[in-house]
């Protein structure tokens, strides 16, 4: 794209002058090879569209794992000045507070030994996977209001809650702003994984890059870990549906014109903006409660296979959101930072980080594609200077689901993974193929770029030994 200006080896900018409707430049974190892939889909146009939003400040950003979405690209970051900059539900996405949680078991893979398959099997029994799956005996409707307000605070282990972004509970959540339909879609789904790219993965630590940070996070060589990737399920999907519709209807009244209707937005200070932020916070809290319930289920499986002592010793390293809008302060300004497929990555010294991690930076988890490495990163000062405290969120899709299925059959992929010693449990062979590694970018390259850009640094590399997929 001719408008792209090289800022550095890993930063490219489209100036605000590229289009008359852009209020700020758009910037992409990528090397030349990734940039070529990014130019192949519509994500550069989409990040320029984001740069037109009223109240957007400084720059609209695309992370190296960016790919085309709807409205915002997946991997997009934009900050709006409060109180009157806009909030866009499409800038958060349908899966509000989709995110990742890492648990560290008190044993090495060598100690797990032949019990690995039994553990994967027990986890798959405890955590329902697949489209629309529900869980029996989940919280009564009356309790849903508490979950929406407090997230996991009422039932999660104190040390888990303390090691969760925002303490597992965004301020300003209002259960009354969540529609009855959203409640109906989500109420019975607490503790379920969902489908698509959601998973629970049993892993082992194969490499430590930063011994000091790894020690602070409680990670050591060959340790067994569990990575949980899920979100707010049908409840969050419906909250987004409800408020995109409301904002679409209100835009003319607010005098807002946009290049893409899915960017529908309203000033954060408007009645529509305030109501969405209250509902989004409630859905985000539900997502944290969901990942807490999954973590509890994993511990139950650990208890059955490895004993109560191992379950008790299974610690939560951290839990990060990668689809959310949050109020944060930069250079004395209060901004509403939209992260859609991007992760907060605060550096050492931030008061937002749990005390045990404050000297090394916030943990960030970057799942690779199924069967490939995942990374634990730590936030770096560059995230604040360049990216509103953000970094990437994953490998980033490269192929459509159909194209992925054309490249490899689910049964073949299952055999290939099992041939590499990875235990696989998935109700959908088709779903397995859609999430095949070939469908994703190279996670090593994505992580290399955020490290070279100074957004975050590598702490540990994890490799899968068991995969449970929706």
């Amino acid at each position, binding site marked *: 794209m001719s408008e792209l200006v090289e800022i550095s080896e890993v930063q490219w900018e489209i100036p605000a002058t590229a289009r008359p409707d852009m209020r700020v430049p758009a910037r992409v974190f990528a090397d030349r090879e990734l940039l070529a892939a990014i130019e192949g889909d519509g994500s550069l146009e989409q990040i320029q569209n984001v740069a037109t939003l009223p109240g957007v400040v400084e720059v609209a950003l695309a992370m190296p794992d960016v790919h085309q979405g709807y409205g915002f690209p997946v991997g997009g970051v934009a900050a709006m000045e409060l109180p009157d900059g806009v909030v866009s539900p499409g800038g958060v996405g349908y899966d509000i507070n989709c995110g990742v949680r890492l648990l560290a078991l008190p044993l090495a893979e060598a100690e797990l030994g032949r019990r690995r398959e039994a553990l994967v099997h027990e986890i798959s029994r405890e955590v329902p996977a697949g489209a629309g799956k529900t869980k029996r005996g989940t919280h009564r409707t009356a309790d849903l209001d508490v979950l929406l307000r407090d997230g996991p605070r009422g039932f999660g282990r104190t040390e888990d809650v303390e090691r969760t972004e925002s303490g597992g509970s965004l301020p300003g959540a209002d259960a009354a702003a969540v529609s009855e339909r959203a409640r109906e879609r989500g109420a019975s789904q607490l503790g379920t994984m969902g489908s698509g790219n959601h998973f629970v993965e049993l892993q082992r630590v194969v490499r430590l890059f930063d011994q000091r940070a790894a020690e602070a996070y409680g990670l050591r060589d060959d340790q067994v870990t569990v990575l949980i990737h899920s979100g707010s399920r049908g409840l969050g*999907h419906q909250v987004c549906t409800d408020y995109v519709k409301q904002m679409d209807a209100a835009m003319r009244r607010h005098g807002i014109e946009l290049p893409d209707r899915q960017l529908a937005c309203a000033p954060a200070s408007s009645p529509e903006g305030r109501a969405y932020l209250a509902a989004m916070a409630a859905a985000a809290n539900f997502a944290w409660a969901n990942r807490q319930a999954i973590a509890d289920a994993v511990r139950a499986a650990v208890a059955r296979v490895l004993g109560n002592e191992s379950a008790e010793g299974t610690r939560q390293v951290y839990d990060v959101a990668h689809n959310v809008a949050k109020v944060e302060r930069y250079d004395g300004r209060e901004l509403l930072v939209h992260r859609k497929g991007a992760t907060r990555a605060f550096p050492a010294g931030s008061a937002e980080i749990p005390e045990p991690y404050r000297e090394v930076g916030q943990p960030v988890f970057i799942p690779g594609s199924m069967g490939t490495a995942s990374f634990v990163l730590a936030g770096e000062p560059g995230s604040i200077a360049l990216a509103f405290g953000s970094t990437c969120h994953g490998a980033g*899709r490269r192929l459509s689901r159909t194209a992925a299925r054309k490249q490899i059959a689910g049964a073949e992929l299952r055999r290939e993974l099992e041939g590499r010693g990875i235990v696989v449990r998935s109700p959908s062979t088709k779903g397995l193929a859609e999430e095949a590694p070939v469908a994703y970018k190279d996670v090593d390259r994505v992580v290399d770029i955020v490290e070279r850009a100074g957004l975050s640094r590598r702490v540990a590399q994890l490799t899968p030994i068991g995969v449970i997929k929706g």
Partner: protein
Amino acid sequence: MFRWVEHTAELELEIEAPSEAAVFEEALIAFAELAGDGGGYPVTHELELEAEESSMLLVEWLSELVYLSEAEQFMPARIASLELADGRLRATVEGHRGEPKHLVKGVTLHRLALRQDDTAGWHARVVLDV
């Protein structure tokens, strides 16, 4: 008729039909294809929807099917009746209760279109987040 267009992470539905009502029928058939076969006892839903413009009515229609599939495990099969007038839709949808295979997170407004062309055919485009 309808077709699915490739996207990196989403599904784009394109419909061509001889009438506006037929667009809505095709949208239901496409959604039923996503939900999959099989199922339990028969279920009928009476739906009444309205929107200020026809493209938003199509979003409402699909959003209703998304909601029913997730909240009530409804797998639509056919439209028994459909009335469309003045931004309002009334329909009787028959199907069964089951386990929908491919749930849609949301019906987006990205690239949304519903229009009649010069040859009196109707075209629609809607992107689903899956």
